[in-house]
């Protein structure tokens, strides 16, 4: 018998966790129109992967975690977010 894992269960901590790279799976990305954005934080609350950040500089999207689901665009009260197709790369 040969085992690759020293644990009896799938268990690990910060340095040894293998994370799934989601960003490569999406075909659309959100773009935020800064003039229409009122920084209400609705998109930040709704994002299922926590890809949207809300700080002094306003709303930012981190594309490491964005799946391209479009929930932020759907929920934005001022329709400041538009999902754009990614092409190339």
């Amino acid at each position, binding site marked *: 018998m040969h085992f690759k*894992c020293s*644990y009896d*269960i799938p*268990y690990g*901590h910060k340095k040894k966790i293998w994370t799934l790279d989601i960003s490569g799976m999406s075909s659309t990305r959100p773009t935020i129109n800064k003039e229409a954005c009122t920084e209400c934080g609705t998109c930040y609350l709704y994002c299922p992967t926590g890809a949207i950040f809300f700080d002094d500089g306003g709303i930012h999207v981190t594309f490491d975690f964005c799946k391209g689901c479009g929930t932020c665009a759907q929920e934005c009260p001022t329709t400041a977010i538009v999902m754009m197709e990614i092409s190339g790369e």
Partner: protein
Amino acid sequence: MEKEIFEKARTVVCDGNKAAAHAVRLCRPDIISFYPITPQTPLLENLYGWSGDGLMDADFVEVEGETSAIGVVSGASAAGGRTFTASSGAGLAYMFSGYLWPSAFRLPVVMANVNREQSPPVQVAGGNSDMMSVKDGGWIQIHVENCQEILDTLIMAYRLAEDPEILLPVQVSYDGFVLSHLSQNVSIPAQKDVDRFLPPISNIKRPLLDPDLGTTFATWVRGELLSEFYYKRCEAIESSKKKIEEIEQQFHNLFGRSYGGLVEEYLTEDAEILMVSLGSQVGTMRVAVDRAREKGTKVGLVKIRVFRPFPIEKLAAIFQGKKAIGVYEKAPCWGWNRGHVCMEVNGVLGESGNAIPVVNFLGGMGSIDITIEEVEKSIAVTRKVGDGCPHKKIYWMPLEDTPDE
């Protein structure tokens, strides 16, 4: 009631739910979370009541359904706490997706299942179909015969689940209404004696959730690792057979009671035919076996106490040399045209190479009485089978006019 009086050893007359509640109280759980469903509700009400009166120190998490209950309990166990939950029938079905977690992550959760017929068709009646429908959940499953055994087995269950070599969830099942709502003599041990038998959970070392290390119980695993996680889990479940017997010996040394470990035998040594069963009907079957013995039939009784892991080796040894086996049970196994226990007994005989005829009796479904006369009839049929008469493989006792005489 004063707490000191409550924590002394005493003998009471109480029903199965109260006996289970006493056992849980004695084991000092940290978190209890469950959702009420008949016939398990009085168990919850007892625990809440004692906690409100200051006689018990557990934290309760009120949830809106069994899926949440098992989630709370799994999370609390992963964080290092001692937990308890309970369910029944349709509640167990609703719990099933979370029911698969404690076994996969080796969490020492203990739960009580108060056996009720699975829905649909919905009825508020006792039966074994709910506990049989979750037999593949990966838990250690023990079935008990009377109220005293409920209390003792729950205390032993915590000891078994939290053993560093085992770390598996344990389910203790007892028949709804027949045991949960009817009263029997129960001897409740003193709190200090149970404290000696069951050390606090923080003594053991196991993978835990730790915010500083950022640990995680991975929900997603690469396929190539799955075989080894499955293998390790199988080995742990297999090793619990020996551990159950060791723990029972220690329990017997301290409290004076034991139940035979994996399997309990009654008059099997010189028996020519055997009746096999599990759960509360075993009590009735003992009387029927005694009566049949008086009439000259050499019959023995085998009570399967631990259903998972199935006691293959023990049963193979007991079955050796017998002329026929009658399996009396309550839940049909869809697709096999037999009951669950009969299917597994067939497996034991197949593996051990014993060609002994097996006849299956299904009765007691939907809380109808399993009478002594009905069991005597089934013993008579099993005796005929042992003498070589042709027979049906399965008899549905409530529906048969008369079994072949």
